[in-house]
């Protein structure tokens, strides 16, 4: 059969190709326009999350329970007033054992009034749960996101809003979070909360806007006794405080039996601390 090569057919083919190209470029433009909604600027340039690995070390023996860290965190991160904390201080009070019962220690009381932030200038922990002479041990434990290597909170997020950043920070994408609260239930350390204003889940970001600019997190910055030490495992200086911390202390993590492998390391932790 002889092929017909008509003018009409050729024009139709050329027209079709042009229309196809036009639609493709229009689709690309439309796609870019749609995605523009998600793109923002103003972030510090030159920060590569794959070249850092952040770590927090806490020395329980150094914490004096002043609450400056919890207060600074609220100011730095615009955390709403009320019982919402990205970091807080817990007080543990362990009483003396009652004689004759064959116990090593008595009861354990844990509290954290206003997260450890003083109300009206006085310290938050001025009232004791038991008389002073009954106390065997008492100490403060600062708490924050434990920066789990296997984080249970990010695994349950149904929309890909909670994630482990390559630099070790566990973050929440506020534009993707639907506020379902799964992650709040999943965190074994109680480090997440639902922001009553934005209605999205929130947590310690390690002051991501500070560490990406070379500053320390707000809590580490204001801690008067250096109970909190913060550093970058991938860029360790020869005299890095983290190195010193490792050399001078035996470290433990919270709830090691859960296998979450936190990167918040505690020195001087008691077995009662959960």
């Amino acid at each position, binding site marked *: 059969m002889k092929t017909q090569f008509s003018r009409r057919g050729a024009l139709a083919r050329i027209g079709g190709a042009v229309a196809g190209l036009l639609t493709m470029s229009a689709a690309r433009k439309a796609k870019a326009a749609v995605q523009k909604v998600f793109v923002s600027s103003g972030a510090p340039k030159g920060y590569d999350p794959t070249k850092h690995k952040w770590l927090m070390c806490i020395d329980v023996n150094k914490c004096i329970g002043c609450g*400056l860290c919890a207060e600074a965190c609220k100011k730095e991160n615009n955390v709403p007033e009320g019982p919402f904390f990205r970091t807080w201080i817990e007080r543990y009070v362990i009483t003396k054992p009652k004689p004759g019962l064959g116990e090593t220690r008595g009861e354990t009381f844990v509290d954290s009034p206003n997260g450890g932030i003083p109300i009206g200038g*006085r*310290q938050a922990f001025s009232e004791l749960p038991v008389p002073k002479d009954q106390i065997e041990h*008492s100490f403060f434990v600062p708490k924050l996101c434990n920066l789990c290597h296997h984080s249970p909170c990010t695994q349950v997020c149904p929309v890909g809003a909670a994630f482990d950043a390559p630099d070790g920070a566990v*973050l929440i*994408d*506020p534009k993707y979070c639907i506020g379902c609260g799964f992650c709040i239930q999943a965190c074994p350390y109680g480090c997440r909360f639902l922001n009553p204003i934005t209605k999205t889940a929130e947590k310690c970001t390690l002051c*991501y806007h500070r560490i990406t600019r070379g500053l320390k997190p707000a809590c580490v910055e*204001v*801690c008067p006794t250096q109970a909190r030490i913060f550093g970058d495992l991938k860029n360790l200086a020869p005299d890095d405080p983290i190195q010193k911390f490792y050399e001078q202390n035996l470290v433990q993590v919270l709830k090691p039996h859960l296998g979450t492998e936190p990167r918040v390391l505690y020195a001087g932790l008691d077995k009662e601390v959960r």
Partner: protein
Amino acid sequence: MNRFKMPPQILRLVLLTLAIVGSYLVARAFLTPASFKQYGWYRGDALEEIASRTPVYAGKKACDECHSEILQKLAKDAHKTLSCEACHGVSRLHADNPNIHAGQEKEEADEAEQARIKLTGSHCIRCHEANPSRPAWFKQIVVKEHYSGKCTECHAPHQPNQVP
């Protein structure tokens, strides 16, 4: 012989399925942000967005640029581990623009913060009031037994072991 003849509704169903799957794929291509899966199963741009907040605390290094004399004094005594903003409060505006005096920034702070800054003694007591939960190595006082006047009468805040 072709005894079996495909019912026409099968073709329609196949076409409908293809249309649904196709429109899903098109919608996904449009709605998935470019940075998704950049680092993992999340939006890579979110990292930048979270980092784009402006810091509130200026940091000790920023203070050191102008007030290095005071910081050198501080480093010689027991308060060497203290950050300036732990006592003086948030000083970002002052650090960005030294013409904005720290006092002005405090005026903008809320009343509770102002009260905290005015009561110079409350800074000291916040950390140094005796509490059985505080570690034994840390210097603590029972305020009632210690002294009834102002802390700064006997202790220079930057060099607490010296009389001002």
